[in-house]
């Protein structure tokens, strides 16, 4: 087509388009009258809680009016609506203190995502095919109620299961109460990369089954064993705020930060001293430090209290952990072990913290107990500048992993002989995607395929909700009443609550309201005062002591976005579990070192966490800070290893374990040991919106199903692999190094 033709064609098609619109009134948009009184052009501020990770940062939402396309009584039109425009950290919130991380900033895209499920859907194709057709809420709820009614009539209510991510709101109470009245087992909490091992260790050492709150701001020395405290772990914003103060918040005092890990993370890059210890030996190093402290006479074994007694050989001064032995086991020079121990004891208050790779090992619990003992020895527990535990609010506690896991559930379904009725007939899924996140050997996908009926509350189609027979889309967090009780990140008890920041954009319903509705349809004996979820949330808040100037904690929480408990000492734990002292056992890896020479270290992605955020375009285009990669998956290789294998940046490599193989481009990474390779989690989705589907590879596909034997926590960093160079290049997009004016130098 030449230019003349092009101009003609556009003129004709443009004219006919506008004529067509004039001729067909149904093509013209009607402006409906808005029922939301909003000042034109001015912003109002509302509150919410970021839902993307369990930290529970308070959020301030900037809301302005805007035009939204809607259909009313079959007529398409536009209407003015209050729309969330920007999220900020909520000033005065005890967890995030007005700050918000990159993921929290992107959380707003969840609400406006083009691939959100906009109305209830019923499956029309094969399970997992993603073929669904719209259905009304009435029909959908009637169908779900009928399936559940049938279970009750059969007299086998134990055939109902509820899968959810960990919940720290009263929604967890709605789910638990529903299941209890129904006669079904407790909810199965899916927390694959969670901290079950650390909670158990904290219970054994200190009597608190929860994650620690790190008072980094007032500390003078922080040693992190694999914990991504500034990136993704626990309460990263609270910890980053503290880190800023550790460094430059006190005139004349600048704290030291040491990171122990085998692959340099974003957190590790910020350390004053970076120590590479072999995976699974971190606890040995911690005890080497403790031994140096004891041997120098700076502390005595009794200072370690109960946490110390849990370590075999503690009272004898940890003779087995001499610096030379530590060097042999961990690879950390003996002099460094002595130096770290001495500095840790002399620069209190000091914090030792452990998470990530060291816990995802067959000896994960021991590693955590060792670090706990080191903290206790230095007198760091329960003191300002040390490790604390946030007071627990009974009745506001959320749902954490306990009892049945997705692994045991899948096994019980798969072990049913062919032809027999599987133990689960109806499965409800809320905000969990184990088909993507669990190791293939657990067979979660195959198990789900055998379940009679699955309903998902998902806002998106993902690998798990695509298996559902019904999708009953939940509100986004900005459209829902939210409440949240942080497990850690604040020294005082806190509970957030906020009304919806905006009205629902689509035909969605609150998961908790749907559960209450179904409960009424089934005539379950749920509390009569629970008309809506708001009643459930308000009920518990009103039992809290109101702060000064308020009649009720519920009103106060909504006015300030958060209720903050009184300054109170942490209650002493009532009892400790009865456990024997433990000795170090070397970590065991899946795959022998001869056949599989490399440790495979997957890590929680800065942008996508475990993959649940891969659907947000801002996060896809966020350059990963240590590699500057965007929209990609990659395998990190030490430059020396890459040279030995003849691999160059961007070359496609195969990662193979005894459980599977994957392909991804290589990235030459100076911060990783020569005998390890690392890969971020989060990409490799088969079905998760237009932005994530078919992009990159999922490292979980090669992971062994090894577990930490005492807690059952998944040892996701205990797999060994081989690396082979393949023909060609992979899709690796990077921000750094791209010269805009030289497209011939791409990549």
């Amino acid at each position, binding site marked *: 087509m030449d230019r003349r033709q092009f101009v003609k064609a556009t003129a004709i098609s443009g004219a006919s388009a506008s004529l067509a619109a004039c001729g067909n009134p149904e093509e013209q948009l009607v402006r409906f009258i808005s029922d939301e009184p909003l000042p034109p052009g001015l912003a109002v501020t509302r509150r919410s809680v970021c839902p993307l990770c369990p930290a529970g940062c308070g959020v301030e939402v900037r809301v302005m009016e805007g035009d939204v*396309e809607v259909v009313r009584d079959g007529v398409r039109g536009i209407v003015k609506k209050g729309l969330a425009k920007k999220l900020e950290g909520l000033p005065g919130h005890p967890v995030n203190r007005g700050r918000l991380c990159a993921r929290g900033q992107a959380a707003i895209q969840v609400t406006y995502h083009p691939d959100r499920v906009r109305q209830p859907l019923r499956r029309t194709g094969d399970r997992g095919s993603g073929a669904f057709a719209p259905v009304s809420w009435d029909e959908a709820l009637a169908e779900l109620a009928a399936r559940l009614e049938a279970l009750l009539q059969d007299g086998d209510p134990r055939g109902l299961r509820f899968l959810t991510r960990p919940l720290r709101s009263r929604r967890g109470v709605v789910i638990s109460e529903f299941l209890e009245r129904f006669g079904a087992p407790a909810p199965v909490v899916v927390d694959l990369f969670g901290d079950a091992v650390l909670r158990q260790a904290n219970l054994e050492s200190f009597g608190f089954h929860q994650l620690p709150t790190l008072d980094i701001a007032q500390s003078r020395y922080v040693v992190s064993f694999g914990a991504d405290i500034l990136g993704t772990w626990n309460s990263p914003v609270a910890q980053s705020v503290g880190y800023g103060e550790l460094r430059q918040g006190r005139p004349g005092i600048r704290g030291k930060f040491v990171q122990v890990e085998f692959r340099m993370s974003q957190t590790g890059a910020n350390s004053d001293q970076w120590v590479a210890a072999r995976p699974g030996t971190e606890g040995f190093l911690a005890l080497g430090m403790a031994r140096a402290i004891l041997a120098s006479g700076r502390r005595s074994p009794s200072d370690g209290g109960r946490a110390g007694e849990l370590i075999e050989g503690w009272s004898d001064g940890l003779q087995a952990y001499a610096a030379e032995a530590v060097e042999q086991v961990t690879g950390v020079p003996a002099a460094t072990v002595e130096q770290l121990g001495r500095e840790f004891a002399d620069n209190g208050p000091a914090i030792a913290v452990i998470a990530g790779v060291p816990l995802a090992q067959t000896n994960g619990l021991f590693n955590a107990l060792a670090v706990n003992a080191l903290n206790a020895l230095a007198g760091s527990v329960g003191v300002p500048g040390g490790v604390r535990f946030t007071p627990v609010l009974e009745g506001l506690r959320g749902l954490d992993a306990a009892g049945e896991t997705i692994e045991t559930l899948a096994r019980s379904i798969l072990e049913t002989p062919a032809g027999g009725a599987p133990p689960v007939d109806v499965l409800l899924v809320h905000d969990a995607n184990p088909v993507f996140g669990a190791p293939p050997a657990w067979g979660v996908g195959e198990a789900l395929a055998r379940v009679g009926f699955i309903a998902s509350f998902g806002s998106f189609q993902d690998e798990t909700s695509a298996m559902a027979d019904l999708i009953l889309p939940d509100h986004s967090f900005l459209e829902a009443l939210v409440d949240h009780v942080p497990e850690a990140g604040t020294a005082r008890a806190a509970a957030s609550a906020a009304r919806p920041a905006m009205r629902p954009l689509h035909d969605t319903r609150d998961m908790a309201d749907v559960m209450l509705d179904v409960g009424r349809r089934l005539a379950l004996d749920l509390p009569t005062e629970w008309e809506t979820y708001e009643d459930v949330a308000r009920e518990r808040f009103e039992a809290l002591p109101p702060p000064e100037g308020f009649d009720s904690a519920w009103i106060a929480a909504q006015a300030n976005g958060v209720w903050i408990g009184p300054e109170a000492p942490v209650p002493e734990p009532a009892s400790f579990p009865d456990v024997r002292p433990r000795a170090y056992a070397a970590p065991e890896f899946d795959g022998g070192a001869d056949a599989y020479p490399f440790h495979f270290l997957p890590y929680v992605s800065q942008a996508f966490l475990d993959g649940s955020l891969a659907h947000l375009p801002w996060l896809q285009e966020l350059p990963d800070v240590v590699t500057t990669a965007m929209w990609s998956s990659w395998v990190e290789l030490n430059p020396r290893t890459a040279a030995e294998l003849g691999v160059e940046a961007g070359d496609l490599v195969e990662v193979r374990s005894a459980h599977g193989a994957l392909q991804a481009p290589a990235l030459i990474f100076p911060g990783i040991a020569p005998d390890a390779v690392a890969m971020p989690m989060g990409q490799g989705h088969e079905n998760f919106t237009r932005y994530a589907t078919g992009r990159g590879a999922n490292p979980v596909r090669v992971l062994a199903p090894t577990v930490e034997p005492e807690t059952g926590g998944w040892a996701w960093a205990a797999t060994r692999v081989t690396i082979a160079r393949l023909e060609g290049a992979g899709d690796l997009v990077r921000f750094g190094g791209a010269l805009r004016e030289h497209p011939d130098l791409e990549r």
Partner: protein
Amino acid sequence: MPRWGMAVDLDRCTGCEACVTACHAENNIPTVGPEEAARGRAMHWIRVERYWEGEFPDVRLTFRPVFCQQCDNAPCEPVCPTYASYHTDEGLNAQVYNRCIGTRYCANACSYNVRFFNFHNPEWDRPLDLQLNPDVSVREVGVMEKCTFCIQRINAARIDARAETEEGRIEDGTLQPACAQSCTANALVFGDLDDADSRVSRLSRSPRGSKLLEELGAEPSVTYLQKGDWDESGGG
């Protein structure tokens, strides 16, 4: 008349990139997608640069957030044939989008690689467009764009200040660009460099402070405070 500037404390910065996403959200910066990003066309008005040193295990990695340095002697300004890039009274390197004809001279002249060209009209898959900030114009194809120190927030703060006080002074700390507001470690501090008592002024006078590529003589308004060293006696 204030003179806006920023201090970046590299001893606090964690490389978390909250600033990067916050900037996208505030300033209607489009995502360009993987194909365009692979051609070097991704737009990030603020980025976190990283520098590797050494070999495993003695390896170091440091971060530095880089954005328009709002130079006093800006190389981007005199090269613009249409005066689209110009210097404001308050010390900003402003960009008048509807004057810009896309010569890209300014991007070539910029020593900091912080100007971004719209190779295409920006697109938001609906309804992502409902998030767009009505206070910030959307830039069309052929237009250069860059960090503005969130000029829309400066203007709004000025209007508020004029309504509230006689002299219309914007109090230190009441105004923050989106990046500084989100910054998790409080590493970015924004304010008036002509106010000797403002936090940014005090930090800019720190002995740890230096300018990026100072020797080029562009006179940036951004001061970087270098990482401190740990000193067991307590200093640093």
